[in-house]
């Protein structure tokens, strides 16, 4: 019996029916990529790893913007859990504003639930403005706010008039959608409606880009920015790691959007294309071949020979700088296997880096992806809307006739679509080895079972799984927080990643877990006599 059947066989009929389409074994993709169920409701009681809409909006996309005061409107928990816990690093800019270290909440009490919380929200904004003098205030709502019907958007509009600030509200109540994914979309919509396009300052050079879907966890965004700037690009804005309102407001002026995490940010990429004509390119700055390919594709987009030469120079220098370290780590890791279960695109991205280190993938899955993240964007027209996805606003945007600029000629655009995959994402499955498993919304039970049956040497997941796996004797590294290490992106990050894997796998403690009295004791010499082995 294969591993999939063995695991599904343990489920009751309803769960079996629900889960069977979320698990597949890769058996060659030449005849087409197999279909997987994704972005559907998790069954109650299943112990999913998923979070909620608020987590996707405030926790992922809005939270890292450092110069805005983001007020969580709700009881204290939601705001508290997103306080300094996601490692999206940020430094204050010249304005000295860095609110990342702070947690702001309306800390709703019972009376606010009964009589409405909008008064308290108004007062909280007033206090935030008086104490912190922010230019921008974001409001993120939690479950009860939607239920009691506080009009946070009206409060935001009123605050803009009263204080002369930008105040944007996000209705990202936790119950909306089926995972964090709905929250990403709501955040994208808000940024598009309120920030992007509000400042027409042109970039320093025509080689201008935004880095979308890069949250600067462990400093990844800084490493990527370093490389891009070395080559000569102007990185106008990073969405949203170390992000600032000022940079995001002029992000529509670039000539190319680079999309790192496809899931969380593709909405902004698409909308910026429609409104401002900015092309987008899926990139991957995790894994050396992936980084080099991405850099070459970007240079190809701009089509400048100097830029291409400079790209090759930087690639050669950077690769030479890390070659020795990478060879050392690869030697220690060659032949190992890995399972990956992370949120959006990372389960795909890290397979590239693992390959560089000689580690093959036996299982990969996404926590909140949609079918296109697995199967590629070609299938988007096939995706059927369901009741849950209909609840997330699909923002209708139109071309801005004054500011729409196409960088490429229509012919060149078509050429690049074919050659560098402009405005396409081919999904994870195509890059996965035959015989490996793809699992959407992997739950606790399946994590345990797959770990036992596939015996990966390393299981990349999050904090909720980490010690489940470790207790079972499998090294688990968190790909959400990098276990407080990083960066893992770019060239320098690859070395840090290799070091961390070697550190984990070669920890002396692994060999000491079983006490000597529980190990098979060596036979006495007399009994050994006559044995044939030397």
């Amino acid at each position: 019996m294969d591993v999939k059947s063995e695991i599904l066989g343990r489920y009751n009929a309803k769960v079996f029916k629900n889960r069977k389409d979320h698990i597949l074994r890769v058996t060659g993709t030449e005849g087409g990529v197999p279909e997987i169920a994704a972005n559907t409701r998790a069954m109650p009681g299943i112990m999913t790893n998923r979070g909620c809409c608020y987590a996707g909006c405030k926790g992922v996309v809005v939270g890292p913007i450092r110069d805005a005061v983001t007020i969580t409107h709700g009881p204290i928990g939601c705001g508290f859990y997103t306080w300094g816990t996601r490692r999206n690093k940020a430094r204050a800019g010249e304005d000295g504003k860095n609110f990342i270290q702070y947690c702001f909440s309306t800390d709703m009490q019972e009376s606010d639930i009964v009589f409405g919380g909008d008064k308290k929200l108004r007062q909280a904004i007033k206090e935030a403005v008086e104490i912190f003098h922010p230019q921008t205030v974001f409001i993120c709502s939690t479950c009860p706010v939607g239920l009691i019907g506080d009009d946070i958007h009206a409060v935001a509009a009123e605050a803009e008039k009263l204080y002369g600030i930008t105040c944007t509200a996000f209705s990202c109540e936790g119950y909306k959608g089926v995972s964090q994914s709905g929250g990403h979309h709501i955040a994208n919509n808000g940024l598009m409606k309120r920030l992007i396009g509000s400042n027409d300052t042109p970039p320093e050079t025509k080689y201008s880009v935004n880095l979308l879907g890069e949250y600067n966890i462990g400093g990844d965004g800084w490493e990527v920015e370093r490389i891009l700037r070395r080559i000569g690009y102007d990185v106008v804005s990073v969405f949203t790691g170390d992000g600032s309102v000022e940079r995001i407001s002029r992000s529509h002026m670039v000539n190319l959007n680079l999309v790192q995490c496809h899931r969380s940010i593709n909405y902004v990429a698409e909308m910026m294309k429609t409104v401002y004509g900015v092309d987008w390119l899926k990139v991957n700055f995790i894994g050396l071949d992936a980084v080099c390919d991405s850099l070459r594709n970007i240079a190809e987009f701009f089509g400048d020979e100097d830029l291409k030469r400079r790209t090759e120079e930087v690639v050669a220098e950077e690769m030479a700088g890390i070659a020795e370290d990478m060879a050392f780590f690869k030697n220690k890791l060659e032949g190992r296997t890995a399972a990956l279960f992370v949120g959006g695109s990372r389960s795909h991205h890290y397979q590239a880096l693992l390959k560089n280190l000689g580690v093959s993938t036996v299982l990969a899955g996404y926590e909140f992806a949609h079918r296109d993240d697995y199967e590629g964007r070609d299938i988007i027209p096939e995706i059927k809307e369901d009741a849950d996805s209909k609840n997330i606003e699909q923002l209708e945007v139109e071309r801005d006739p004054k500011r729409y600029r196409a960088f490429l000629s229509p012919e060149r655009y078509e050429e690049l679509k074919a050659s560098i995959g402009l405005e396409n994402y081919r999904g994870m499955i195509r890059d996965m080895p035959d015989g490996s498993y793809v699992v959407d919304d992997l739950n606790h039970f399946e994590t345990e079972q797959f770990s036992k049956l596939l015996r990966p040497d390393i299981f990349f997941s999050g904090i909720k799984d980490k010690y489940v796996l470790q207790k079972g004797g499998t090294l688990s590294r968190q790909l959400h927080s990098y276990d407080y290490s990083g960066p893992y992106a770019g060239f320098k990050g690859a070395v840090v990643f290799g070091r961390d894997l070697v550190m984990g796998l070669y920890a002396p403690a692994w060999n000491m877990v079983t006490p000597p009295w529980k190990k098979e004791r060596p036979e006495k010499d007399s009994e050994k006599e006559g044995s044939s082995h030397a």
Partner: protein
Amino acid sequence: MLDLTPKTVTERGALRVNPCKTCQPVGALYAALGVHKCMPHSHGSQGCVSYHRTFLTRHFKEPAIAASSSFTEGASVFGGGPNLRTAVKNIFDIYNPDIIAVHTTCLSETIGDDLNSYILEMSLPDDKTVVHSNTPSYVGSHITGYANMLSGFIRYLADAHAAGNGKTAVFPGFVNPGDIREIKRMLELLGLSFIVFPDQSGVMDAPMTNTYQMYPEGGTTIDEIRALGGCARVLSLGRFSCEAPADALEKKCGVPYVSLPLPIGVAATDEFVMAAAGPDGSVPGELDDERGRLLDLMLDANPYFYNKTLAVFGDPDTVLGLTAFTLELGMKPKYVITGTPGDAFVRQARAVLDRFGIVDAKVKAAADLFELHQWIKNEPVDLLLGTSYGKQIAKAEDIPMVRAGFPVLDRYGHSYMPIVGYQGAMRLAELVANALMDRQDRDCADEDMDVVM
């Protein structure tokens, strides 16, 4: 660090900044993990339990299991009954606990889901149990949620007709597994027959064996919770975390209780030992010796504690204990805060401070770390004693810090080590002395550096 915090304190009525508490459900979840073969269950949208499991795992560096009713928009409108029924079936089918402990969230509370009737109407396998407690996130704090969940277990399970077992029930308070081990060790030394409820030792500090056990050996059993009704008495440790459940047990089963502070420091541990031993009981020599060693250490290191000022912050019972012990060490608590609301905290903290003649300390409940930081900017202290988020203030103001309480997210090993009892106090004294003495070494002139201190 925290560069945008102004020195001038202004009145805030609505904006909470840098909280010193979290919400009820995480406390309920932790309480339920102290019951053997129990699956905690969050009746709300799935983000809550994702956060809570994450948070507890970060504190304990252990798996924290729990399931969710995974509310979507539909359930939020039409009620979460069907979600709970599906969840309970799936949990028993897939994860096979003996008991599911459901707690509510702000979502299910706001829509008014009636958990009592949902659970009553369920058909459950004969040997399986479901209990619940109401833990609205917009009331109290995680400490309230912990107390409410314990009361929930008692309401459902404690047997008013249980045969008298003569045992002492001990509710250990919102503490670490290391503390519970220490409390149990002391009870054993005292020769008591006892039930500790809840008991996260063995669960949230399970050993490394290369085998993951979803339900480790530890935890209060369902039978033990039933038998609480037949206990001779309850010692409830921590007025904020355990008095309400002790009261619930007394009301339901007539078991009298003694409400004690958490046994942190000399006097509180003495009080616990005396109460546990009872009027006729004797205290074994081992405890005399432990106590004697603690007092020895306190006198030895006294010069380094004397008149040092500090800020204590965290959960109410823990903060009261830490305040009392630092006073016993000869230190001067200057700021004593908790995020959990309630005037009782202020009264109790004042009473502790009064015993040592301290009248000018600032004491506040429903406070936050932003305000504490502002106070410190105006009048600094020598030491911070509290939870991990204090590290921002420690860095901003260059003040040494000792971590204690919940949560401690940025250190390893703390949850194995007690701060309760005489041994816990010795550990605390050593941590505090080391922090202060390291600072003295760091800051002194070369010619003032003493090798012997």
